[in-house]
């Protein structure tokens, strides 16, 4: 029987590209049940160009737990395809042994026990050690940041992203693209970008008035590395003004703009680019579709959907690399570029096990300097948890269940809505819940916990609208989040149906009654994209609720029924 790995290599040989991933090596580590920094960094330097990819850190400067999803459906052409495999299915697909470090880092099962065994992941000082080691191998390696960097923590909020800018500058990236950064507001983004010592890229960042490329963001940047002319083209998150409050950055328009992407690829090739890299915040399925439409991209470094894949996915002659989130991973991609084209690659998804990789002292000091002014607030213990608190999953996560519970009780409402974002680290049972932990899962610049009335009919429109953003079979119509989380409201969803027909059996859980389309319900939620939303910040709501509980216990959520497809 042909193994998954043989198959990958066979298909690459067919397209005249020779490739190898660090996956085989990972497998051996897993078998040994032992890890060392040398093993994690072990890499047989290859070719003449090295790329390092880091994405979706969400301002997590210090090591965290982060449970990967157990529910992540693919639709249309991506049904059952990577990255829509989870848990044991994912492990079987990549030959990962149960209970191994790879199991812990990449999948969801037995998370609490494995988290206790293998410890936290990430930390910018550990990442610095990895980056420095790769630079020792290949001094001119490119470090590319896929964005969602200046968002997601207490310190990031209180410094308007400056903590992340300062810390990342210590890593010396070569280029970056964007998403949540824009929720700092366009003036602040421009202010930071003007001072960045590296390229701020986005071929799809346009001036909203004139519909032409925006002044502060270049579409691409050339680099001369390893005797090779490399073009890095940026691709920001396409649906920012829809998924996030557009009024915070009214001067900008985005979109996928794949025809402009093709024009940029052609332009850089005409200027002699031998290697074309797309630094993307499209999300994985969108990148996959784009790779099949735009010709001439060698490597897509994919961010936004937080997928971590131990091997690149090949579409035509393009390899797509997905590097996870929250600082859990750094991807290293070595490339052989000769005769003006990519001849082969070697890849490794390096897991940042914080107890295995030694922190880089300089970066530790830099991170500490960002956190020191806020240390007392960050460390204040608000309560404890008896339950594993995590967020990832298409329909619910225990963190969001807790947030919905807090909203319902603190805002005295019948139904709570919590956005289906994919950021926010996990806490394991027995852990203290600190203020920092609460902010890590709630921080954004439009935190008002509103209280309003919505009719049953409108609630259905909301659920249908969000469901189509995730389950539209055409990836270009997907925005890359998860389903809006509901508290006090149960429903049934058939993801294979078209918009307007997916949601049924909406039930008010308090009474067990069906939702009446004509009745008005008291609804609370947070992260509204509407300007002028009023209410206390969500982190205050959650903190107050947890204080009253002391120790929180979150029961299993059975309120969403996913139809058997």
């Amino acid at each position: 029987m042909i193994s998954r790995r043989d198959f990958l290599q066979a298909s690459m040989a067919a397209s005249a590209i020779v490739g190898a991933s660090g996956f085989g090596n990972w497998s051996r580590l897993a078998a040994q049940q032992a890890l060392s920094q040398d093993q994690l960094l072990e890499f047989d330097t290859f070719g003449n160009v090295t790329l390092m990819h880091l994405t979706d850190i969400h301002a997590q400067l210090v090591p965290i737990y982060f449970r990967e999803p157990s529910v992540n459906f693919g639709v249309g052409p991506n049904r059952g395809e990577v990255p829509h495999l989870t848990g044991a299915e994912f492990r079987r697909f990549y030959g990962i042994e149960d209970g191994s470090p790879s199991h812990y880092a990449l999948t969801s099962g037995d998370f609490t026990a494995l988290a206790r065994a293998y410890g936290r992941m990430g930390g910018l000082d550990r990442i610095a050690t990895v980056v420095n080691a790769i630079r020792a191998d290949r001094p001119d390696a490119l470090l590319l940041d896929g964005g969602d960097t200046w968002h997601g923590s207490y310190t990031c909020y209180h410094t308007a992203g400056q903590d992340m800018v300062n810390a990342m500058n210590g890593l010396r990236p070569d280029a970056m693209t964007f998403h949540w950064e824009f929720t700092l507001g366009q003036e602040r983004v421009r202010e930071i970008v003007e001072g960045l010592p590296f390229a701020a890229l986005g071929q799809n960042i346009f001036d909203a008035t004139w519909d032409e490329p925006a002044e502060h963001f270049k579409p691409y940047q050339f680099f001369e590395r390893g005797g090779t002319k490399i073009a890095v083209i940026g691709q920001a998150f396409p649906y920012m003004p829809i998924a996030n409050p557009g009024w915070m950055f009214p001067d900008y328009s985005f979109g996928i703009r794949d025809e402009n992407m093709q024009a940029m690829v052609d332009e850089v090739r005409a200027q002699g680019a031998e290697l074309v890299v797309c630094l993307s915040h499209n999300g994985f399925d969108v990148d996959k579709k784009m790779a099949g439409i735009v010709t001439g991209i060698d490597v897509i470094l994919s961010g936004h959907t937080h997928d971590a894949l131990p091997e690149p996915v090949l579409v035509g002659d393009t390899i797509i690399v997905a590097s996870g989130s929250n600082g859990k991973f750094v991807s290293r991609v070595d490339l052989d570029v000769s005769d003006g084209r990519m001849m082969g690659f070697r890849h490794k998804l390096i897991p940042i096990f914080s107890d295995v990789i030694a922190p880089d002292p300089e970066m530790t000091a830099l991170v500490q300097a960002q956190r020191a002014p806020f240390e007392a607030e960050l460390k204040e213990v608000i309560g404890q948890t008896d339950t594993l608190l995590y967020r990832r999953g298409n329909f619910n996560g225990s963190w969001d269940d807790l947030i919905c519970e807090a909203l319902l009780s603190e805002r005295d409402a019948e139904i709570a809505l919590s956005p289906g974002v994919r950021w926010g680290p996990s806490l394991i049972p027995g852990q203290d819940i600190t203020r920092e932990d609460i902010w890590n899962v709630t921080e954004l610049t439009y935190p008002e916990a509103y209280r309003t009335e919505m009719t049953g009919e409108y609630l259905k429109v909301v659920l249908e609208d969000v469901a189509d953003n995730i389950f539209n079979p055409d990836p270009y119509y997907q925005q890359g989040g998860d389903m809006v989380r509901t508290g006090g409201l149960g429903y049934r969803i058939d993801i294979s149906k078209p918009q307007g027909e997916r949601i049924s059996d909406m039930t008010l859980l308090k009474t067990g009654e069906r939702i009446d389309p004509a009745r008005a319900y008291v609804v609370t939620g947070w992260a509204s994209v509407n300007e002028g939303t009023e209410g206390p910040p969500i982190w205050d709501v959650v903190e107050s609720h947890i204080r009253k509980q002391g120790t929180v216990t979150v029961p299993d959520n059975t309120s969403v029924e996913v139809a058997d497809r």
Partner: protein
Amino acid sequence: MQFTRRETLALGAGAALVTVLPFRANAAIEDHVAEFTGGAEVAEGGVTLTAPEIAENGNTVPIEVAAEGASAIMVLAAGNPTPPVATFNFGPMAGAHRASTRIRLAGTQDIIAIAKLADGSFARASQEVKVTIGG
């Protein structure tokens, strides 16, 4: 919170969508097409329609149409109360056969472009533009 008037309007518009969404080409649209083409056959391709997959703001959606050597390009918004958006006519001296504008869309629907090409034949392109509650 109190919803502002604008948001209330937005909510109302969203609620209206549920019954009629998405708008597709129908008989009325085909009548407009037949009127433009005089009933001639319309081939797929040969005209380029550029529009966002998801509108950032349904009230002002940038679109562009182009067809090499076309003498006219008609644009229809299949789901608008008044589907004909514009017909761009290009004279013999036209340097480019391309036009861009911004259009208002009542909801998620197909945008259709029909071009009359130099040889008198007709070409068609269409794309779904999604208008979300937020957008």
